[in-house]
């Protein structure tokens, strides 16, 4: 009845305690063998306490298992004490290593020898450097030679002029900041380009306003599934938005580019880093096809210019 079930609970607990004790002794074999402490005796005392409650065969078997383990260790420990040489004590070694590495011992007051397993305190961040510098003195390790020249294959020379500083005599010549390939088109197409850029900005801003929390995929934004050429044009026009600090491209958690409109008022501060970037983007026909497929794009986000006169 009640007594029997209570008895079963106590027994389960007892077995659990025996198993923990056995595991503890097995895992800390070296420390049990250490001649510097009485861990083994302590464990035996604990087993004695547990044994008082043992009444059935199952628990008695665990007790026997523990005793076999303890007596093996005891024998080994005794042989160490007998021999005329001093025995190397790994746990003392570990303690001394910790001291050498500058262990910051926390509560010196509570020297509860119970917790010798993990001496409390923390190691400074250069602990292993300190030990390593000492260790290296006992080695004839050859230093290694490291270099950068010749480690990589050189690409052909970069025939690109530096993004020039504004020279003070130059005046506010805005064309200076234009990338080369744009300069040519500039004269004839400037107006058309301006309009198109504006139109695309409108799209971007309205998508963003509709759902400010949802990032806009750059690739989905520019890709026109019906026309590779229009896709490239879109990228070209978006590059103006980036350059002028009206939009920015970031990478999302999946490392895919997302595009976001910037409003000059708030962008003012980081204009230095943002505004002057000319994003040079490219896409091959093959890549365009892959993108259309992968993103399952069936409709352009930017409507082709002619029909969409907003």
């Amino acid at each position: 009845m009640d007594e029997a079930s209570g008895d079963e609970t106590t027994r389960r607990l007892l077995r659990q305690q025996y198993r923990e004790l056995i595991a503890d002794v097995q895992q800390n074999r070296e420390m049990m063998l250490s001649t510097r402490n009485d861990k083994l005796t302590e464990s035996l005392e604990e087993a004695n306490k547990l044994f008082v409650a043992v009444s059935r065969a199952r628990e008695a078997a665990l007790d026997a298992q523990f005793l076999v383990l303890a007596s093996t260790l005891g024998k080994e420990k005794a042989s160490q004490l007998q021999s005329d040489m001093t025995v190397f004590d790994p746990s003392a070694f570990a303690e001394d290593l910790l001291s050498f590495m500058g262990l910051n011992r926390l509560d010196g007051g509570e020297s509860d020898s119970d917790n010798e397993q993990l001496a409390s305190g923390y190691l400074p961040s250069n602990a292993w450097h300190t030990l390593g510098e000492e260790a290296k003195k006992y080695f004839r390790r050859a230093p290694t030679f490291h270099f950068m020249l010749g480690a990589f294959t050189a690409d052909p020379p970069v025939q690109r002029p530096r993004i020039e500083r504004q020279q003070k005599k130059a005046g506010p010549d805005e064309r200076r900041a234009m990338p080369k390939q744009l300069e040519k088109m500039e004269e004839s197409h400037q107006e058309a380009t301006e309009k198109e850029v504006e139109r695309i900005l409108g799209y971007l801003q309205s998508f963003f306003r509709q759902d400010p929390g949802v990032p806009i995929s750059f690739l989905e934004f520019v890709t026109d599934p019906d026309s590779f050429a229009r896709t490239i044009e879109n990228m070209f026009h978006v590059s103006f938005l980036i350059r002028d600090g009206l939009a920015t491209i970031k990478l999302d958690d999946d490392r895919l580019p997302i595009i976001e409109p910037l409003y000059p008022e708030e962008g003012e501060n980081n204009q230095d880093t943002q505004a002057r970037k000319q994003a040079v983007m490219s896409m091959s026909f093959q890549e365009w096809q892959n993108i259309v497929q992968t993103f399952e794009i069936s409709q352009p986000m930017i409507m082709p210019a002619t029909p969409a006169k907003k």
Partner: protein
Amino acid sequence: MSQKKRNKRPGPSQVEPMEVDEEYSLSQTPSSSQLQRNVQRRPQSQMEAKVNELVRFLLVKDQKKIPIKRADILKHVIKDYKDVCPELLKRANQTLQQAFGMELVEIDPKSHSYILVSKLPQLERESSKEDEDSPKMGLLTVILSLIFMKGNVIKESAVWEVLRRLRVDPGEKHKVFGDVKKLVTEEFVRQKYLEYNRLPHTEPPESEFRWGPRATKETSKKQILQFVAKIQSKDPTFWTSQYNEAETEANAAGRH
């Protein structure tokens, strides 16, 4: 035949007697007159160029401290100079000694692999953050110490027991060592600092560590005992049997 004359080496000599044979293979080959004839057939300038290329190759290959196989040397540098290979190795060794104070040592006569070892003692340094290899050397030295002090072989579990007390746990990513289980049982093993063998008929599987051949070339029992003595603020003679063993080894290595 193992008593061939050794090169005089400055500093503490700390290698096992078997190295005599290896140095022998670096300096001469059995048919040395044939080799001499081969060497003379080659233009000296080409021989020198080959030697210099070989030295560069050895320096590059030593970056990861994995022993360099003779087969790789033949394939990448020696190529059609095979007939003068021993002479090239010998001269490369001379250059390494002359320019860098390092020497080329064969560590595995079976697979013919080589390592570079310094002939100069370590300089004392003020700043300890400079060399990123230092922490690994610290960890390695602890393990080599445990192996030697416990009778030249130690169970893997006993190593981790000590390392855990040093806040290094094989199951956790360590902030200095990263995957420390991999470092100890793979990197140190590939570099031949350690030997790592699974014990037969053990369930769960148990393994044990011994010193690898690189450890015996770069350090010695005597050196490691001195390290332990320094850490524990004791005299090396404190551990009688280890002390005797280390002295015996040192004497054997020092004998010409």
